[in-house]
């Protein structure tokens, strides 16, 4: 019950989901229906079941959840291995994003057993039975587990994630002390610059669910902090001006789902608090 890092799984499950009806507050096109249960592989001794959100844009039907049974003795250890095996051997229409398979690209971010994580770094052994797999929350679904991230990328672009200097370029690099570099990289390598833009945090933020059109969300804000904290950047004041807004920044109510869910162990909640402190400091 005492969580020390985001990769620690809860030992007890009191509530798997909030006690609301299955399709609570969901508009008609988004209602999830019960889908197909695929047969178990013949001769398998260890079977893992996966209940996966499916949506086919060409059929015009509602999303549904299909249940697959995977022979775990003939499958890699990670949830991504199971998804690839399902696509290879059982149902080739299953669609999901993936690339590096080692937890550094952020492509396979999805909701597994109720929390957002990377499929390639989540052990099947650590999932429930059946494991429930949904796309990242409160996003338009293109197909199956592939959400439309356009708006999230637009919010990232809004914070202008590049170095803005007002001094002439030096002959070689712009110097930075190791302490200043540590503000970006973190002494344990988990500073804001280490973010892989998987959007697990933003997709898990209730404030972004309700106000995501105007609230920037933890992913964009931790990157905003990354540039505010960069000693080489000269546009701190302008960056703060653009962030100081009741919706862009101040919809953050320190819920801290972001820090809880980050698959890289970063701390967006703390970064956002640092932004608020910087804004308060400049007027006192």
């Amino acid at each position, binding site marked *: 019950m005492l*969580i020390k890092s985001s990769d620690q799984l809860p030992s007890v499950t009191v509530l798997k989901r909030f006690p609301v*009806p299955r399709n609570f507050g969901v508009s008609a096109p988004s209602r999830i229906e019960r889908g197909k249960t695929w047969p178990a592989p013949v001769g398998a001794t260890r079977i893992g079941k996966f209940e996966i959100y499916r949506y086919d844009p060409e059929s015009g039907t509602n999303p549904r959840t299909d249940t697959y049974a995977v022979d775990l003795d003939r499958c890699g250890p990670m949830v991504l291995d199971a998804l690839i095996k399902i696509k290879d051997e059982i149902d080739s229409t299953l669609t999901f994003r993936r690339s590096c398979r080692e937890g550094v690209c952020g492509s396979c971010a999805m909701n597994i057993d*109720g929390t957002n994580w990377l499929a390639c770094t989540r052990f099947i052994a650590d999932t429930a039975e059946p494991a429930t797999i949904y796309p990242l929350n409160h996003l338009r679904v293109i197909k199956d587990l592939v959400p439309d991230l356009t708006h999230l990328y637009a919010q990232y672009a809004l914070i202008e994630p590049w170095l803005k200097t007002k001094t002439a370029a030096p002959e070689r690099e712009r110097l930075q002390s190791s302490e200043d570099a540590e503000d970006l990289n973190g002494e344990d390598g988990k500073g804001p610059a280490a973010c892989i833009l998987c959007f697990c945090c933003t997709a898990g933020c209730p404030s972004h669910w309700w106000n995501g059109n105007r609230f920037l969300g933890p992913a964009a804000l931790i990157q905003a902090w990354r540039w505010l904290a960069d000693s080489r950047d000269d546009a701190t004041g302008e960056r703060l001006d653009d962030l100081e807004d009741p919706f862009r920044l101040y919809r953050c109510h320190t819920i801290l*789902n972001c820090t*809880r869910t980050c698959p890289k162990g970063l*701390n967006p909640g703390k970064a956002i*608090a640092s932004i608020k402190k910087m804004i308060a400091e400049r007027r006192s």
Partner: protein
Amino acid sequence: MIHNERPLSPDLQIYRPQLTSVLSIAHRLTGVALGIGSPLLVWWLLAAAAGPSAYAALQGFLASWLGLLLLLGWTFSLFYHLCNGIRHLFWDAGYGFDLETIYASGWTVVTVSIGLTLAAWIFGCGMKG
């Protein structure tokens, strides 16, 4: 049914309740509950100013089972919102953001609020004047 618009992926319907989100929504619910109860504070002052019979009427309501239930709810809301509010102030100052501290302080807030509520009621019921 044929739909043309992309569906929205589920959020509240499937996200796992965690200490972070549960204590946060509880902070909001207790805050709103206290807000709904705030007119009672003003009513209490008005009744005290109006005289012993007006005050006795209010006391009568508060001693009813509904009144006692509301008072119990409000005292817990007060202590929870106060303790979690202090936790929020530490966050605003920049402290306590590592997960270990978030969880330890969270459980402390829950325990202390329940404790203060029980202490208040036991003590209050035991007072003689």
